[in-house]
């Protein structure tokens, strides 16, 4: 037998354990919103990528891994974006991407769940809880929300720490459409 024909049965054997492995499909979005001078601004992270192992019946095995490029984060306002990606906020030249990982999941009833994960942003790793709904199907959908303290991660620290100008709480929302991992 060739090595290849040996590999195939192995993969088939391993497949059931990985049945709930997903990757992100088109139609997904990761957005954020905050306030500046009393007015709400919104932005998005194009190019974020999600891998998710999830079976509502086996939360102990669930695993979420999201990578978020920062140099392309945009609010739709060039003046804001320059500052946002610059040294005082995301410092995307130094910290190219943020990452959110979670292995602890809780059922909140019905299709609602919470992930107690860790956000690594700008060289700081801190716990962040993501609450989400899970819509199963051929293309399951995760729709979730989290609140991130920008100052906990040094985003807009120093002179920009004034929460009268930019409040600390940043609302993050995501909708991820999944397809089974190849």
């Amino acid at each position, binding site marked *: 037998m060739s090595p290849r024909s040996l590999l195939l049965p192995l993969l088939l054997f391993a497949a059931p354990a990985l049945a709930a492995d997903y990757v992100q499909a088109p139609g997904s979005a990761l957005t954020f919103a905050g306030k*500046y*001078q*009393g*007015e709400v601004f919104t932005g998005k992270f194009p190019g974020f990528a999600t891998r998710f192992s999830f079976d509502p019946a086996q939360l102990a095995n669930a695993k979420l891994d999201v990578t978020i490029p920062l140099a392309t984060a945009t609010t*739709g*306002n*060039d*003046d*804001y974006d320059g*500052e946002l990606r610059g040294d*005082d906020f995301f410092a995307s030249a130094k910290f190219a991407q943020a990452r959110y990982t979670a292995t602890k999941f809780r059922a909140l009833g019905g299709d609602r769940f919470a992930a107690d994960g860790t956000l690594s942003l700008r060289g700081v790793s801190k716990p962040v809880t993501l609450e989400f709904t899970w819509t199963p199907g051929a293309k399951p959908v995760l729709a979730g929300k989290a609140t991130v303290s920008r100052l906990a991660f040094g985003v807009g620290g120093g*002179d*920009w720490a*004034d929460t*009268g*100008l930019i409040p600390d709480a940043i609302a993050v929302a995501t909708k991820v459409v999944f397809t089974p991992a190849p």
Partner: protein
Amino acid sequence: MSLKNPNERWGAVSQSFHWLIVLLLLAQGTIGLLMGDMARGPDKIAVYAFHKSVGITILALAVARLLWRLYAGRPAPVPGTPAWQERVASLMHGALYVLLFAVPISGWVMNSAAGFPLQWFGLFNLPSIAAHDHDLHEFTESLHEWLFWTLIALAAAHAAAAAYHHLFQHDATLARMLPRGWLHAPSQENRDVA
């Protein structure tokens, strides 16, 4: 002192509007010309926010002033003023009123076109009055400054005319825009004596 405008001089309300707006414009123009050179950062944002707040204040005062002017009327022309001078002065006053509105409104449009919030002294927000548009922002940025310089030029001519009337014509043109007794208008006194 009468609140409304008696026939021979400006009343207290009109005088207050006039001089308060003069002071605010001088401060506002100075801030506006200097703030662009500040280093980017929260301090610059705070100065811009202050400039915008003062601009909105001037616009609100201009509205109130115009309404008051329509209600309270204006004194008769200073006796002895040639008709052509009276006409030029009226045109000047009209132009100053137009600019008193145009300068802050152009700033408001500029701010809206840039997509920035507009907050009055941190207390409440005002809506955008134009779409977020790069070209419109560039255009109104120049317009705002040119309108400002036009206002300054006309206001300087207006002030020079008042000084000329006071110093060379010796009439009450300037004195009657100030509280009674602050300035002597010799020709008025002469007339009173005569």
